[in-house]
C-alpha cells in the first residue's frame, strides 16, 4: 500500500485548479457547458483515484483533462452544435468576421484532433499557460526535452494546417 506524505486536501485542490482545468478543456471542445461537465468528470476521477492524489495530482489532472477534451473533440459528434451555441466573438463583429473567426476555431481544433496525441496535448497545455516543468510533470516528459518537443509539435501543427487549408487566410 502506498502511503502518501501528509494529507491531500481535495476541496482546496479543487478550488485552486478547477477554473484552469475547465478553461483548458474549453479551449479544446469550445462549449463552456460541456467543458465544465468534463472538468467535473476529471475531478471525479481524481476523487475516486486515491493513488493519483498527492504531489503529482496536478499533473495527473491536467493530463486527464486534456485527453478527455481531445477525445471529445475527436468524437466530433456534437462539436458543430457546440460551435453554434457558444463562443460568440467579442464585440459586435460583422457576419463575415464572425464566420471567419468561427471557421478558424473549427480549423484549429480539427488540426489538433489530427496531430499525434502528445503533440496536441503539449500545444494545448502550453497555450493554456503551463510552464515547462508543469508540462513535464503532466505529460511525464523529461523537462530538458520539453522545449524541443514543443517546437516539433508546432512544426507539425503548421505543416498539417497548411496542408489542409493552404496558405490562404493566416497561413503565411
Amino acid at each position, binding site marked *: 500500500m502506498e502511503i502518501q506524505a501528509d494529507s491531500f486536501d481535495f476541496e482546496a485542490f479543487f478550488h485552486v485548479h478547477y477554473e484552469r482545468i475547465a478553461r483548458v478543456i474549453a479551449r479544446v471542445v469550445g462549449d463552456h457547458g460541456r467543458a465544465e461537465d468534463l472538468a467535473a468528470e476529471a475531478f471525479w476521477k481524481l476523487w475516486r483515484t486515491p493513488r493519483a492524489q498527492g504531489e503529482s495530482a496536478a499533473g495527473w489532472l491536467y493530463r486527464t483533462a486534456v485527453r478527455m477534451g481531445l477525445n471529445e473533440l475527436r468524437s466530433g459528434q456534437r462539436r458543430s452544435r457546440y460551435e453554434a451555441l457558444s463562443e460568440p466573438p467579442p464585440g459586435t463583429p460583422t457576419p463575415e468576421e464572425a464566420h471567419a473567426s468561427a471557421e478558424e476555431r473549427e480549423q484549429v481544433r480539427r488540426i489538433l484532433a489530427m496531430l499525434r496525441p502528445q503533440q496536441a496535448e503539449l500545444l494545448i497545455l502550453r497555450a493554456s499557460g503551463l510552464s515547462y516543468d508543469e508540462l513535464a510533470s503532466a505529460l511525464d516528459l523529461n523537462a530538458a526535452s520539453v522545449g524541443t518537443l514543443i517546437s516539433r509539435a508546432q512544426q507539425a*501543427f503548421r505543416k498539417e494546417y497548411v496542408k489542409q487549408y493552404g496558405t490562404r487566410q493566416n497561413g503565411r
Partner: protein
Amino acid sequence: MDDNRWVDDRLASVDPGDWKPDSSAAFSGLMQRNAAQAAQPARNRWWVWATVSATAAAVAIAMLLLSAPPACANPLGCKPASQPAPAPVADPAPPSAPAPVAAAPAAPASTQAHKRTFKESGSPTAPITCEVYTDYQCPHCAKFYTETVPQLMADYVKTGKVRFIHRDFPLPQHPYARLAAQYANAAGQLGYYDTVVAQLFRTQGIWSGDGDPGLQVESILPPAVMEKVRALVKNDPAPKASIDLDMEMVREDQVNQTPTLVIVWNGRRQVMPGSISFPLLKSFLDDLLSRK
C-alpha cells in the same frame, strides 16, 4: 513568421476569453454526485458488486497462489514476520498480568469494528456512521478535528443522526504520531479520550517539535490520572493494540492518506479521502438522511 508565433496565434483563437467557470457550484455538484452514488440502491448496482466481488475473489486467489507457495518463500529465511518497530517510549518489561486486549483472540478487524469502544460516540442505532482516520501529527487532521468534527458532533452525533468513530492511522513519516495515539488510547481507557485527542491536535505543533506528546497530555489531566496513563502507555499493550486494530481497517478500506472519512450508510462504506469542510459534509449527510 516563425512556427512558434504562427502557431501561438492560431491557438489564441480558441482561447475561452473572459469566461470564468464557477468552482463553488462545480464542487457542490461533485459532492451531490458522490452522495447520489453512495445512496444508490444496491439492487440497481447488483451487477457492479457482483463484478467487483468476482474480480476481488479472483485477485485474492491469484495473490494467495503467488504469495503462499508450499515452501517457505521468505527471502530472509523461515523466520517469523518482523514486528513493527517499537514506539520511542514503549520499551517496557513484559506486563505482570495479561492485558485484556492483547489476550483477546485475533478476530478480523471487520468483526471487531462494531464493538463499542471509547473511540465511538453517538447512538449505536444512528442511520449513518462516520469513521475518521487521522494521524496526530498531520496538520490537515488537526484542522479537520478542530473545525469540522466539533460541528459534526453538535449537529449530527449528539442528535442521534450519526455515530462517530475515530480511527488511528499513524503515518510512517511522522515519528511521534504512534506515540501520541498511544497516549490518547490510554487516556480513553480511563474515560479521557476526547479531552486528550483535542489536546493532542491543539498542541500538535509543540510536541511534534519536542517529541513528547505526554508532556502536553500531562498539562490537562489530573496528576493521578496522568500517572495511570503513563503506566498504560509504558506497560499495557492495549493502547497499541487499539492502533493495530485500526490499521487493519486501514488496509480493509485501502486508506492511504489522512484525514480520510468513511461514511457508512445502508450497508455501504464510502471512503472519502482528504479534509472535507463542514458545509460540504453537512450537505452530504443531509442528502443521505433525506433518503431514509
